[in-house]
């Protein structure tokens, strides 16, 4: 019994990482209707960046994260402003294929720079510490931290959306990209800000990823899929829905893995498909499909 509870808790907390990954995807899709195929690859890029900083300069993971996050935000801003903004329009194909190109470029640059071997960041004793909850049940300190960060980030995003001019501009742009320009909003700038923010969140997720598991240059795509699934399960447009989606995905994977180690990921995918069949708009949909 305790075994099962531990599994569920593990899955629940794993959902935090997925929600963190998904938050950025949710933002960029919500504001710009772009799915960044390279989303997961950017997370891996950030992870390798952190590994590099820790390895070459002896920084600790927190310091590495503090450096990597603004760098990635800047990269996202630049890519949107310089390249992706030129592909905007009703044709979904163009931005999708551009980000697909980014994905290939990033993966192969990482392969060149770091080889195909898996690597990770050591979290020391923090990484293995756990909080006992009575009986044989315990939760890992690292997963708990990730979940807490995810909740904090999502809460921060929610606050931004509701209480800042920028956040309101994001929501307005998501509703009507043309009308928002009539408000005096420079939509190109707004999109770049959204991508920058999305990349910042992706960077946080990436560093946590390196701390919790081993990563390889080609791991990007699967994390894109997890982020995507979390967003769709939760419902497009809902930030807290994304958290729920991530948790459901995490739990599904944990349960699947409990039956057979090789079935964890498959269980997650099947859960996603099941939600798609039963409730295609997700559990807490808020946006209208354009």
């Amino acid at each position, binding site marked *: 019994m305790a075994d099962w509870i531990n599994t569920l808790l593990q899955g629940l907390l794993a959902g935090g990482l997925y929600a963190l990954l998904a938050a950025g995807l949710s933002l960029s899709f919500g504001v710009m209707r772009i799915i960044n195929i390279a989303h997961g690859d950017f997370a891996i890029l950030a992870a390798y960046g952190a590994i590099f900083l820790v390895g070459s300069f002896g920084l600790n993971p927190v310091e590495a994260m503090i450096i990597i996050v603004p760098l990635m935000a800047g990269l996202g801003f630049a890519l949107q402003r310089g390249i992706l903004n030129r592909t905007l329009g009703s044709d979904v194909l163009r931005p999708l294929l551009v980000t697909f190109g980014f994905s290939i470029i990033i993966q192969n640059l990482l392969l060149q720079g770091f080889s195909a071997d898996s690597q990770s960041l050591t979290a020391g004793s923090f990484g293995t510490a756990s909080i006992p909850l009575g009986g044989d049940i315990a939760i890992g300190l690292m997963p708990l931290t990730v979940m807490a960060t995810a909740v904090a980030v999502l809460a921060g995003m929610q606050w931004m959306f509701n209480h800042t*001019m920028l956040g*309101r*501009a994001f*929501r*307005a742009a*998501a*509703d*009507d990209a*043309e*009308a*928002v*320009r*009539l*408000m*005096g*909003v*420079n*939509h190109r700038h707004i999109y770049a800000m959204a991508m920058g923010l999305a990349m910042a969140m992706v960077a946080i997720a990436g560093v946590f990823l390196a701390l919790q598991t081993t990563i390889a240059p080609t791991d990007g795509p699967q994390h894109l899929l997890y982020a995507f699934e979390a967003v769709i399960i939760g419902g497009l*447009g809902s930030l807290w829905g994304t958290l729920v989606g991530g948790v459901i995905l995490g739990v599904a994977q944990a349960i699947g893995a409990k039956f057979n180690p090789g079935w964890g990921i498959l269980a997650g995918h099947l859960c996603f498909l099941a939600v798609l069949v039963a409730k295609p708009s997700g559990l807490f949909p*808020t*946006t*209208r499909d354009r």
Partner: protein
Amino acid sequence: MNLLEAENLTAFYGDFQALYGINLHLKEGEAVALIGSNGAGKSTFLRTITGLLPVGGGDIQFAGESLAKRSAHRIVARGVALVPEGRRLFPSLSVEENLRMGGYAKRKGPWNLQRVYNLFPILKEFAKRPGTALSGGQQQMVAIGRALMSNPRLLMCDELSLGLAPIVIRDIYAALPSIRAEGISMLIVEQDTGQALRVADRVYCFQEGRISLEGRPADLTREQISLAYFGV
């Protein structure tokens, strides 16, 4: 110097020419109405002024400066605001948030949230409701208020009366004089010709992308207007 001056303005939707050499002017403080049937080019003209549609040829000058190559958000910052056709409120935002969005450009002037509520008191009641949960007339008020929040020098209204009952239209138009009293100039596109003629200092009639008639409402006869409108 005219506040707004269009000189031989042409505009295209892809290969299709929508405006053929429009010459039009508006003095500061004036209310000018653009009438004409559907598809005549009135809304296209407004879109070109706001920068949503690129200028194909000719020029538009606002307060002496050319708008032709400027992007939409800069044009708003210069003091041109549009109440778009169909209102186009932001469904995810509340009434108050919609109004606040209008103030994004942060132009200085007398209009602020409180003033808009004074002009349209009913909006204060619905401040927290989603923008689209209101009646057509109330949505039109929000759209106008939203445009006012940018403290424009020129307020352009595209089809204010669209889809509204006559009594509601009357109420909306009744608010216009207090807007004009502040010195805001107005450019009104209106299919309801009667309403347009009542409110405007001068009128232009559009017909198939060209100006077919121009003058003061008092000087124009019904026959002239009919001819200009339908082109027969």
